[in-house]
């Protein structure tokens, strides 16, 4: 009970502070009056009585303070006092405060925005219930890495496990959606999930309902769909009547039963599917595919929630037993001997490829961290300059007895106030910044960039760090001074105190150095991007329109599908203004490639190796349409069809690697090669060699490619499902879009057409990531340049003011204005030169970490070195010119009188 009473007394002294202070005054006044009365009664005069009372009492002010200290809130009182005083100081210098806060806000804002992005991409767990309980399950072995699940394996695990609270499988796939008779391919695709998907994740519908676990038991019997919030907004304007509406998915009627939360983007960051349907509807939507019953088709991603109290080891043991049994029962023991084992991984982040994010995250956070460092250096410099201006005040306070520690606390409080203001403004900047980042990204990428507690903690953390970083040195320096000199009016004009100048110059040099590093990085990336844009693609993208079609989504397969492709080609070729048309399975620079095994006569791979090549099924006219030159031999003709003998065209690299570096191209012609595992696609005779070209993306090296007529191979159904059509036009290709679309729809009015763009656009889009990275680093570089210039300006302006007297004397002695200008500018340029040299040395030395992100540019690129230096010097010249101009105007009379 004592502690409660003491606590109560404590609270009273805190909250009734004014009353208590008043009462203490009364109490002591009463004491003094009592003593005076007694003194008077011994015959003293009133004046004597009073001073005698004071003498026996002691110093009332000091004793009152000591008494208040016993109330126990002295520290709080001091902080409140420091903060109040700090706020007053900041308000008194609005210019200084604004510059410091803005500088910090830029630094903290940029860092927080980048952190938000990284947080959304890889740190934030899925917005589901208890994400830490989720695990990813997959069979895996050493050679092939992670496999997927087959559907029958999923069923076995679902029904036989004793360690999982829930388990589901999912797979993505293109989906042609028709609402009110208007068909479009769902922009983000569709998702097939088992009925336990939502209940296992603990995701609920914001409108309608989600699937019930029973909704996937009977194949083909549950035509129900859950749509994403984004799709609800885009397609249905958030209308409640969307629930219950019938939509057609790949021609099959479905009922919308619910909408998921706006924060839920599926279980893979960036994929954000629009439409989710039960897995058992898969065959109906995919031309009667038999994948669901195929025990050896490992195509599904599997996520489970562990039962409470079950360890990962227990679950692995449980699932491994089921898996072994499954392999045995299905006659797949062969896989066990290949070392295939069940594996569990943490699933809190869903299927996002977090490992791939780490190098990007580290690089970009380091670069943006440099910006913050420069910002802090700027504020340090400002504080140092102000510390010099406040020397007299501080000297006065020291001389009347303020302790150095106490004063430092005051100065650090001011720094923290600045940091806090900067951090708050930076947090605002960051929220704008992240919106800008979203605009930079490709459409429809679902990323939740809203700040969460992690982002907030990050911002708070770097704010405190910044406060310590920029506040400590000035506080130390300001309180270490000679009192006499300080009281005499600080450092008088013209009288230079060398050490603070050295520190400030050092800081500016390091700013210039860091900015140079950032500018250099930005320059390298920009140069590399230019190289990518002007790289020899092999083909000529100008005047080519590309579009993709997927007739299997509306039920075409087998010979009907092949005939449709032929019809589409024929009709497109008939459009006026079209020069030539072709079809290809992979398209160009679409990141979709197909690699498979080839058998080349006379070429034996090393032991344990296989001969692989990229496979590209195309139609006739492909090389002519995309402008890819045939170096030797001939192009595919219309006659190279199902009935003709099988022919192939290979890339130069293919020819050289398999037929000899010297004369491989000549030797390749006429050779017969086998395509596919055990030559299952057949034997093809090489009739031509094509120039090397970019396949997946632009920064890849030349690769082995074999092209063959898509009509001539017994292709697996999935390889025929969608095709990219290339159309070479006489005029601007984008203008032909409608005419071609009309013509294709005339052949099949429900044909799903998507990805319509010019080939030039396609090439540019393949560089989105590089462009975004370059853009960001350039932005950091410019920000750094700006901050460093402001810092340089501050130092030069300050030193110019201090040298006013000196300049006055020089002018009086006959120096002309040009000499003054040279004197001031040379100081700025000298500091810049030191910074640039160190910065470049550092940048070139550490540039190697960049080399993987660069294309066609060395890390010691002379052009970039030159560019970064010139930019830095121009900025420094400007920053130095403004104070120099002011120095030129110094009137010697005024300056000398000032002294």
């Amino acid at each position, binding site marked *: 009970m004592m502690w409660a009473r003491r606590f109560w007394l404590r609270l009273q002294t805190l909250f009734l502070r004014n009353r208590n202070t008043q009462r*203490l005054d009364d109490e002591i006044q*009463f*004491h003094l009056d009592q*003593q005076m009365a007694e003194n008077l009664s011994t015959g003293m005069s009133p004046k004597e009585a009073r001073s005698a009372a004071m003498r*026996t009492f*002691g*110093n009332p002010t000091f004793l009152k303070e*000591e*008494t208040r200290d*016993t109330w126990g809130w002295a520290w709080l009182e001091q902080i409140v006092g420091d903060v109040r005083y700090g706020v007053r100081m900041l308000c008194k210098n609005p210019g200084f405060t604004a510059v410091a806060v803005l500088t910090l806000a830029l630094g903290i804002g940029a860092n927080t925005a980048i952190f938000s992005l990284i947080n959304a991409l890889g740190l934030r767990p899925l917005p589901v219930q208890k994400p830490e309980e989720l695990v990813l399950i997959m069979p895996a072995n050493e050679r092939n890495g992670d496999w997927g699940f087959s559907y029958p394996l999923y069923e076995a695990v679902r029904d036989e496990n004793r360690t999982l609270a829930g388990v589901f499988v999912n797979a993505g796939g293109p989906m042609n959606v028709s609402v009110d008779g208007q068909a479009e391919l769902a922009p983000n695709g569709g998702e097939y999930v088992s009925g336990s998907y939502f209940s296992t994740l603990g995701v609920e519908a914001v409108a309608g309902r989600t699937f019930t676990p029973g909704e996937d038991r009977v194949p083909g019997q549950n035509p129900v769909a859950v749509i994403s919030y984004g799709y609800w907004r885009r397609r249905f304007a958030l209308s409640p009547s969307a629930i219950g509406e019938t939509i057609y998915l790949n021609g099959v009627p479905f009922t919308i039963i619910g909408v998921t939360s706006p924060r839920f983007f599926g279980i893979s960051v960036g994929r954000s599917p629009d439409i989710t349907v039960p897995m058992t509807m898969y065959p109906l939507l995919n031309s009667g595919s038999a994948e669901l019953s195929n025990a050896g088709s490992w195509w599904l991603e599997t996520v489970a929630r562990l039962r409470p109290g079950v360890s990962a080891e227990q679950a692995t043991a449980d699932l491994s037993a089921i898996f072994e049994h499954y392999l045995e029962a299905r006659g797949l023991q062969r896989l066990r001997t290949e070392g295939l084992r069940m594996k569990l991984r943490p699933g809190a982040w869903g299927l996002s490829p977090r490992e791939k994010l780490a190098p990007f995250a580290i690089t970009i956070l380091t670069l943006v961290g440099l910006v913050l460092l420069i910002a802090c250096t700027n504020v340090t410099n400002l504080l140092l300059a102000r510390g010099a201006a406040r020397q007299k005040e501080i000297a006065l306070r020291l001389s009347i007895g303020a302790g150095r520690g106490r004063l430092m606390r005051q100065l650090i409080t001011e720094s923290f106030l600045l940091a806090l203001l900067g951090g708050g403004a930076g947090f605002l900047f960051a929220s704008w910044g992240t919106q800008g980042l979203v605009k930079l990204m490709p459409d429809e990428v679902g990323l939740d960039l809203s700040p969460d507690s992690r982002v907030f903690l990050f911002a708070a953390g770097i704010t405190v760090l910044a406060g310590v970083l920029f506040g400590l040195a000035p506080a130390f320096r300001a309180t270490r001074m000679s009192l006499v000199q300080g009281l005499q009016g600080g450092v008088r004009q013209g009288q230079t105190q060398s050490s603070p100048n050295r520190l400030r110059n050092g800081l500016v040099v390091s700013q210039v150095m860091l900015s140079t590093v950032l500018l250099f990085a930005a320059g390298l990336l920009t140069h590399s991007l230019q190289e990518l844009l002007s790289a020899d693609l092999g083909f000529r993208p100008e005047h080519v329109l590309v579009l993709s079609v997927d007739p299997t989504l509306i039920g075409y397969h087998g010979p009907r599908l092949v005939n449709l492709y032929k019809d589409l080609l024929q009709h497109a070729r008939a459009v006026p203004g079209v020069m030539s048309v072709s079809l290809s399975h992979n398209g160009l620079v679409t990141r979709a490639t197909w690699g498979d095994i080839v058998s080349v006569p006379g070429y034996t791979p090393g032991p344990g190796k296989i001969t692989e090549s990229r496979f590209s099924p195309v139609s006739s006219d492909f090389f002519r349409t995309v402008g890819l030159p045939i170096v030797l031999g001939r192009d595919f003709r219309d006659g190279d069809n199902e009935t003709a003998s099988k022919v192939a065209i290979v890339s130069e690299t293919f020819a050289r690697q398999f037929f000899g570096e010297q004369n491989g191209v000549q030797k390749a012609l006429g050779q017969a090669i086998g395509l596919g595992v055990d030559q299952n696609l057949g034997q093809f005779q090489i009739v031509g060699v094509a120039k090397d070209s970019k396949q997946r993306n632009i920064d890849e090296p030349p690769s082995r490619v074999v092209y063959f007529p898509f009509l001539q191979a017994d292709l697996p159904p999935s390889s025929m499902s969608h095709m990219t059509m290339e159309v070479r036009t006489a005029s601007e290709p984008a203008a032909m879009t409608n005419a071609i679309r009309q013509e294709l729809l005339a052949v099949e009015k429900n044909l799903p057409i998507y990805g319509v763009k010019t080939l030039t656009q396609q090439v540019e889009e393949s560089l989105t990531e590089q462009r975004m990275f370059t853009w960001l680093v350039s932005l950091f570089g410019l920000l750094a340049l700006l901050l460093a210039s402001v810092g340089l300006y501050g130092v030069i302006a300050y030193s110019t003011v201090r040298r006013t007297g000196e300049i006055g004397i020089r002018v009086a002695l006959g120096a002309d204005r040009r000499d003054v200008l040279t004197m001031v500018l040379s100081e700025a340029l000298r500091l810049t030169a030191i910074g640039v040299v160190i910065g470049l040395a550092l940048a070139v030395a550490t540039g190697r970490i960049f080399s993987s992100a660069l294309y066609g540019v060395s890390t010691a690129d002379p052009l970039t070195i030159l560019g970064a230096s010139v930019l830095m010097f121009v900025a420094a010249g400007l920053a130095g010119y403004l104070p120099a101009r002011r120095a030129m105007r110094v009137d010697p009379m005024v300056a000398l009188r000032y002294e």
Partner: protein
Amino acid sequence: MAKPTDLVQGTLDLLILKTVSLEPKHGWAIAKRIQQISGEVLQVQQGSLYPALHRLEQKAWIKAKWKETETGRQAKFYSLTVAGRAQLDKEAANWNRLSAAISVVVQTT
């Protein structure tokens, strides 16, 4: 005049507790009482009483009440709490032990 004996820290607490143990007193009266009883040997600087009084009050060993004095003015009267009584007994016992020990040491050497 010899400098009055400085009070050992902690001893002042004991003196205050003892002084207010009989009846509630205000600060000036406590100072006077200590001077009187010790025959002017213990010269407390009157003001230093107040930090000590407030510290003891915060520890809930004494409690304070504003009351009228006989002259009709408002004054803060301090009195002992139950916890304060226990503390006084403890500190007095400590003091007796200590002073006895010291006098034995002083006499034998």
